Every structure is written in C-alpha cells, then in structure tokens.
C-alpha cells in the first residue's frame, strides 16, 4: 500500500520533470541506475546472508533463545540477535508479539526490536562505504547502547 504510494509520488515527479526538461530527466534516470548498480554487489550479498541466517535462526529458534532467558542475560541475548539479524518489520512485529504471549518480557522484546531496526551488522560494509569506518561503527555502537535505554523506558512504562 505504502510502496504503491511511493510509486505514485516517484512517477508524478518523473512526469513533471520530463515535461520541464527531457535531458535532465534522462540524466536523473541514469544517476538512479548508476547509484543502484553501485551498491548491487553489496545488496545481493546482504540478501544471501539474510537468507542463510534466517534459515538457521527460524522464529522457533529465536523464541527459544529469547523466550526462556529473562533478566539482563535475556536482554543481552535479545540485543545480539537483534543486531545481527535483519528481519523486515512486518515479520518482526508479529514475531515479537508471539514471543510476548509465550512468556518473553517486555524489556527483552523492546531491546530486540530496537537493535533490529537501528543496528545493522550485516549492512555495515555498505554503511562504511558511505560514512567511513569510524562513523559507521560509532553510529551502530551508540544505537546498540541506546536500545537498552529504550528497553528500560518500555519496562517502566508498561509495568
């Protein structure tokens, strides 16, 4: 649905651009293709890594890793799994809500979701390409620490 909206927006701007300046529009499309082709090797690698990883770390395995352990150890576990995996939101949230029902704590789930979204170990080579090593590692480390703050906030708010 939202993707559809993106298509409409992109297409409208493209038509507008074409009416105003044909040459510039073709240049824009060429640039779009070049920047896509530029990251394609990394994208394909990421896709295969995610595939292998999720085939091993199936939802049942993730729940057995996060669900059983509680407390700080559980949070650490959840944060590590969240950092290394890359699950799209529409899979992650139902998984998280199922984990909650099967007994995982809110704080573990919060740290899992937060690291899942903000920390990307698999995508770090791509991030380094744009931000450099230091900035990419800093951003991911800070986001990792911040995820625990989110978890504590959730733990307090949903007590």
């Amino acid at each position, binding site marked *: 649905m939202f993707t559809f909206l993106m298509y409409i927006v992109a297409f409208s701007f493209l038509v507008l651009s074409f009416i105003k300046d044909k040459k510039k529009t073709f240049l824009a499309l060429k640039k779009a293709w070049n920047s896509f082709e530029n990251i394609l090797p990394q994208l394909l*690698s990421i896709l*295969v890594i995610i595939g292998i990883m999720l*085939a091993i770390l199936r939802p049942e395995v993730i729940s057995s890793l996060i669900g059983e352990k509680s407390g700080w150890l559980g949070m650490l576990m959840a944060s590590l799994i969240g950092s290394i995996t890359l699950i799209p*939101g529409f899979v992650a949230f139902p998984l998280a809500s199922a984990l909650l029902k099967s007994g995982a704590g809110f704080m573990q789930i919060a740290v899992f979701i937060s690291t899942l979204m903000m920390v990307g170990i698999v995508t770090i080579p791509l991030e380094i390409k744009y931000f450099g090593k230091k900035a990419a590692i800093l951003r991911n480390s800070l*986001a990792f620490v911040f995820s625990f703050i989110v978890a504590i906030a959730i733990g307090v708010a949903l007590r």
Partner: protein
Amino acid sequence: MKMLLKRYKYFLVLLVINIVVYDLYPSVGQKSIDITWSNAVEMLSVIPPIFILLGLLDVWVQREIMIKLMGEKSGILGVLIAFFLGSAAAGPLYAAFPIAGVLLQKGSKFSNVLIFIGAWSTTKIPMLLFEASSMGWKFMVTRFVIDIPGIMLIAYITEKLLNEREKQYIYEQASFK
C-alpha cells in the same frame, strides 16, 4: 569480465556457501534460497521509486538550496526536514544509504544525515502503525517518544567524535558517487 567477477566476489562466495549448505542440509538450504528469493523480489519492488526520487533529487535540487535546507547553518529546519524525509520513506535501511550519500554530496550537515538515517530506521510512519497494531499503542508511543531524542543524541555524538579531517573525507567520498 574480470572487473565484474571482482566486484561480485563476495556474492559468489556466499552463493557457493549456500549451495554447500543445500548439499549438507537440504531443508535449511532450501529455506535459505526461498527467503533470499522472496527478499530479492521485495527489494526489487520497493527500490525503483526510491532510486528514481534519488536521481531526481540529484538533478533538480541545487547544492545551494540543500545547504540552506539541511546544511551547517540550517538549524531546527534541517533537523525537521531530516526527520520528515526519513519517516516518510518506505523500504529497508540499506536503501537509505545511497540517499544519505546524495544528501552529503549536496552539502547537508552530517548530523542531519545521521538523523535522516535514524528516522528511516525507526520512525517510519507505516511501520509505526503496524507496530501499534501488533504490539499495542502504549508500546509504540513509548518507543517513539524516546526514539526522537535518542536519534538526535546518536547523531550529535557521532558527529562530535569525528574530527574535521574524518568529516572532510566522508564528504569527499560522497562526491565521487
């Protein structure tokens, strides 16, 4: 041809690993191929409009305008635009990096680009709605409220910890693409 092989070497190595896994554990290997395929299809359906917008942004928005909107002296406006751009998007985080590259190349402040990345990763509007429906409103709102200052803090600390030379290098890298 040799260049192509070199550029795609990691991908090819991973493919071989996947084939080996398939050989040893057919069910895991099959599952992995299924997941990779469905993710690839998803990626190809989400990515075209993002890159078209990126191309148009690159061609039409002048550097001076971008510096005014998101540059060093853009202040709160730059922060708001960064949040809006990131939140209004759809697509996985890896699609955000090329856009971040263009924003840098056009002279955006580095912390604003990091805010854009932060917003893209956590406060995407469609994802928030989905989060509320599966985790409850309280969970979503709590996370959202603490994420906003968190994203800004991460952005500012990251920028502060880089020295001028490192920042300059990032901008130089961005202008090559």
